[in-house]
């Protein structure tokens, strides 16, 4: 997380810390599913492996402490079928579900986040929070940090990408956030974590995006998987749990 601040206990109780191909994030759904980015499991420019251990930790804001709590065995990892590990510039379908072997017992430091159910959560300018154990200013983080970011206008991001001469895919199943004037952003190690938005009407927090990719960190915009477009898939894979 760039330009953010340390989280306090209970701020982001859904936050997962993963250590699969290095550090990553995720978010608890229900009491035995973790939503994350497919590329934390099948990183681009890696050969497709299936046997790497998938350590998932939950329930703390400190890396050492969260590891002491012990990892949660993963029964299975479900990768979205649109994800293309072998296309480094295409993060389409960068979404995955980790089914935990056992349900977790919820508490103040361990709670799931809700899924979005309409487009208003993607209105330009809507502020959201991105949390993660990823690097900050080129330093590894020992604690969970977060940063507040506005949803950016798609065209603005589109133009920005062009200035960067990027040929990365920016599909309708993604959205971008950030403010080039602010060095606020997610960064490596935050992937899989969610962009959380507060639904004032219902006083609930919604995972509208998944930290997916970006060009550098803190230099402009970050790109997120648009969770709303995958809610049906998620519910199908979770077995229509409530």
């Amino acid at each position, binding site marked *: 997380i760039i330009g953010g601040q340390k989280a306090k206990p209970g*701020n982001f109780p859904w936050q997962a810390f993963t250590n699969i191909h290095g550090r990553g994030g995720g978010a608890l759904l229900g009491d035995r599913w973790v939503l994350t980015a497919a590329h934390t499991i099948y990183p681009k420019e890696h050969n497709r492996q299936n046997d790497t251990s998938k350590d998932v930790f939950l329930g703390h804001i400190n890396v050492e402490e969260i590891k002491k709590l012990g990892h949660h065995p993963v029964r299975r990892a479900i990768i979205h079928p649109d994800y293309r590990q072998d296309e480094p510039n295409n993060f389409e379908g960068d979404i995955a579900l980790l089914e935990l072997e056992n349900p977790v017992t919820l508490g*103040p430091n361990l709670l799931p986040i809700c899924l979005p159910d309409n487009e208003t959560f993607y209105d330009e300018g809507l502020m959201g929070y991105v949390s993660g154990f990823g690097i900050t200013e080129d330093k590894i983080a020992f604690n969970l940090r977060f940063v507040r970011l506005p949803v950016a206008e798609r065209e603005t991001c589109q133009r920005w990408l062009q200035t960067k001469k990027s040929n990365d895919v920016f599909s309708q199943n993604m959205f971008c956030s950030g403010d080039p004037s602010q060095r606020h952003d997610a960064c490596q190690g935050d992937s899989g974590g969610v962009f959380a938005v507060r639904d004032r009407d219902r006083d609930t927090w919604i995972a509208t995006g998944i930290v997916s990719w970006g060009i550098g960190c803190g230099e402009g915009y970050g790109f997120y998987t648009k969770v709303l477009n995958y809610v049906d898939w998620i519910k199908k894979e979770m077995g229509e749990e409530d």
Partner: protein
Amino acid sequence: SPYMPQKLYGEISSPLYPKPYPNDIETTTVITVPPGYRVKLVFRQFDVEPSEGCFYDFVKISADKKTLGRFCGQLESPLGNPPGRKEFMSQGNKMLLTFHTDFSNEENGTLMFYRGFQAYYQAVDRDECAPQVNSVEGGYQPQCQHLCHNYIGGYFCSCRPGYELQKDGRSCQAECSSGLYTEPSGYVSSLEYPQPYPPDLRCNYSIRVERGLTVHLKFLDPFEIDDHQQVHCPYDQLQIYANGKNLGEFCGNRRPPDLDTSSNAVDLVFFTDESGDSRGWKLHYTTEVIKCPQPKALDEFTIIQEPQPQYQFRDYFIVTCKQGYQLMEGNQALLSFTAVCQDDGTWHRAMPRCKIKDCGQPRGLTNGDFRYITTRGVNTYEARIQYSCHEPYYKMKTRAGSSESVRGLYTCTAQGIWKNEEEGEKMPRCLPVCGKPVNPVTQKQR
């Protein structure tokens, strides 16, 4: 004389019949039928020279050493002595028919020809039991001492109860060592009652009725058994046992009291010495279906179905419990209970109890808990508990329009199961509450 084989019927006719019979002959035919039968003979045709007293030609019938008749003439004619359609009956199983003709048949110098006779005989059962006049004293001499039973072709004798037919097949000797009475009611009496009983008796009368019946004895008047002023029944005595238990020893002239033996097996033993002329005894036994004690519930939750004012052998009663209570026999839970009245007047099973249904410790709720609405720790019928989830992290799943308090309320039912009125036995579910951090990010500085 020709002998007729022992047939049951036959014909006899005169020589050369129906041609005229020859002169100067005498034949005697012995008609024999099987023993136990009598011979009945009748003439079909009869044409024999008539004469005064049937002096010349005649047919003579005799049986049992007696002549039954001497006949001549024609059936329809008044001359001579024709037999007509008379039926001749022997006593025994033999009859003799003698046919005699003289040397000529002339009438006023004219030769006469007579065709003779044709007779038909058959064996007729002899009723040996009918009164037979005794040939010697002329008195009535019964075939049998007690009872005579005639059948076609014979007869047999039997004796009154308490006597045994002797080898001679007709006399009866007191034999009362194993009188057996199995009917539901009846009479038992000493031999010859109310005439004096025979001496030297060793009589045993067994009343054996169906299990479940109890025998009642009622003695009739007169009751007379030799006795003694000082010594109890030294001469003759009547002992009564029920199920082998001695109910008493009786003699004298006072009827024993009516006895309820409470048993379906009663034995009467009657001993007499060599003398005496008491008239003996007679009793009427009846039976009554044995009763069982009125069933009584052991607690207020027990229901005796359709109670009867009285229960007797083979009756039964069914017990159920009030709703919410369990039939228990000892520590054994029962699905149903029936007790049958046995032949000894006891119930085949003891009355059960009704114990309140216990639903057992309520199941734990994952990510939730329960508390007792009724007495804490009591899990019996109609106990109630309220499940709730560990809020705010979990929330109870409820139907639209329902509430957690309704969905979480469970009652211990009469079936011994904790049940919710909406979902029955199904446990509630505590679902994770998403998006509600207890310490959401807040920022002060603006």
